[in-house]
């Protein structure tokens, strides 16, 4: 199993958010989690990425034969986990290019691979940015600073394509995107899909799943997964909402 979440319960500030959640993802699969506001979707994404604000009450997570809780935030990233943030943080003064260069090299170092030199990295970045319709001038700017909502999401996907993760978690990447931006972003995701990597897509709406075809769709309500199946569930939700699952 690539990612195995067993009976996960999590709280924050005395509020139980995840309540006995189970989820298994195999290599090469695309899973979508849909659920109403406040059901714990983003909490799950943050817990997987290692955010330290949460208290793990119970459960286990295995990722690529590692106990995920033994790995800190950066070790999870270096092992191949990537979270595309719902609200990417603006970091003025940290230039995109050296930041991404440093990020890719920290991953390569952990994998005992040679570091990528400046020239090769510049070429890689330029080509990936061009694929995503990102202007080269944007790469001279500070991380997410002054970006529009669409630019921030595109930049998240650019980072994902550079870091080439084994498991990418997309936390409401579709929110705030117009239809053209949504297409660019989802094209970027589809280009990255291989038999060796997996995706966990968190969304409210079926629209995103028109562009990224999931193998499995899960309905999450009140901190646990209440129904799993194929794409037909997304259609059902689009038609009837989440009410019937609550």
């Amino acid at each position: 199993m690539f990612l195995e979440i067993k009976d996960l319960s999590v709280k924050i500030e005395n509020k139980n958010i995840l309540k006995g959640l189970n989820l298994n993802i195999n290599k090469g699969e695309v899973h979508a989690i849909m659920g109403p506001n406040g059901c714990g979707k983003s909490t799950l994404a943050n817990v997987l990425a290692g955010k330290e604000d949460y208290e793990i009450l119970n459960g286990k997570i295995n990722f690529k034969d590692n106990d995920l809780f033994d790995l800190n935030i950066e070790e999870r990233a270096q092992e191949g986990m990537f979270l595309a943030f719902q609200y990417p943080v603006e970091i003025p003064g940290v230039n995109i290019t050296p930041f991404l260069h440093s990020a890719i090299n920290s991953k390569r170092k952990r994998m005992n691979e040679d570091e990528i030199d400046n020239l090769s990295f510049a070429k890689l970045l330029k080509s990936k940015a061009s694929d995503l319709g990102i202007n080269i001038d944007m790469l001279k700017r500070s991380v997410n600073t002054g970006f529009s909502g669409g630019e921030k999401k595109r930049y998240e996907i650019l980072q994902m394509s550079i870091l080439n993760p084994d498991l990418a978690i997309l936390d409401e990447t579709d929110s705030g995107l117009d239809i053209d931006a949504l297409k660019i972003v989802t094209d970027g995701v589809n280009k990255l899909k291989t038999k060796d990597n997996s995706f966990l897509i968190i969304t409210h709406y079926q629209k995103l799943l028109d562009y990224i075809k999931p193998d499995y769709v899960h309905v999450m309500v009140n901190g646990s997964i209440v129904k799993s199946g194929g794409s037909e569930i997304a259609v059902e939700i689009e038609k009837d909402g989440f009410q019937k699952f609550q």
Partner: protein
Amino acid sequence: MNIQDNYLKNKKNIFFSENKDIETHREKLINIFENDRFDKKNNESIKNINLKNFIDFKYKYLIPEETSVINKNQENSYTIVSVNGQCSSFKDDKIEITKILDEDYNDFSKNDTIEHNDHFVNLNSLFLNSGFKITVKKNNNIKIKISNIITDDDLTIFQKNNYICEEGSSLNLIEEYENKNNSTSNLLNVIKLEKNSQLNHFLIQDNSPNHNLIITSHSTCKKDSNYTQKVYNFSEGYVRNFHYSELIETNSEADLQGIFFLKDNNICNNKTFVKHLAEDCKSNQVYKGILNDRAKATYFSNTHVDQVAQKTEGYQLSKGILLSENASYFSKPELKIYADDVKCSHGSTIGPIDENAIFYLRSRGMSKIAATKILISSFINEELSSIDNQQMSEIIQKKLVRYLSKVK
């Protein structure tokens, strides 16, 4: 020893002590120390410190055996090594440097506009034992680098420097304070900018833990002149950077910037008092600090806009990153506006490093320490990248790397 006994005992070593007018003035200052109860709450000049340590000092001053050196490196560039606050005289067609002479007492002795509320300026006036005067002549554009050397332990330097930029002149001034001995420097820089002149003043402070550095500057800007001060403080000893600025004629400008990097028990007190006394003048202040361990800093700022100073622009900003729960930064920017057509603002944000930004960077594979360091660097990136002097920029980058290497 009380201040009066200390003064009387060392009088012969202090400038102008034979002058009756000065003597009378100094007696008044002594009375301030005798009568003041040193109300820490209402006097910014003594926040975070024990003034007694600075009043009950053992006066010691040595006239340097080694005279200071003035070199003219290139056409418009000079380096000065000032020893124990002294500097030799020098003159060419662009600048004139003179020692303090008895007949200069009017220029050097009284600091009426800033005395009384500032105990350290009063101490400087009382115990003045060194200093010099630099005049940049009309329409010249020059660079001066001053290294301030103190030769012995336990010296008490009370120094006053006068800088005069004549009409149409431009001075790029770099001052380095890197003293490793146990001594105290109390320096007052009095700066006069004539019409259409400019002074870019950089101060790099990197003293050892037992060196106290008290710098007060007082600039006066005439029509179309500009005073820019950038202070970079990496000192481990006590540092006080106070600046009093008066914009006395139209279209003059004061840009003040202070960046400090503190750790252990370091203390840095900053204060500015900018008076807008004419129309169309600008002042801009940015003070940023990074504080680790048990370090403490203050920033008190007062921008006063006189009723005649219409179309004033006055901005104050202070920001601080606290890397430890025991570090503290107290900031109080104030505006007093008596004109009705002005653009002024003030702001202050102090807090720990942004945890969300740390999480974001770590989620891309950066270690926590690397993420912290990159965020500290980014916090001051705008100020560092605005340094247009390559040599200065390299010096500061090197010191920043040293500071970051201690951040755990």
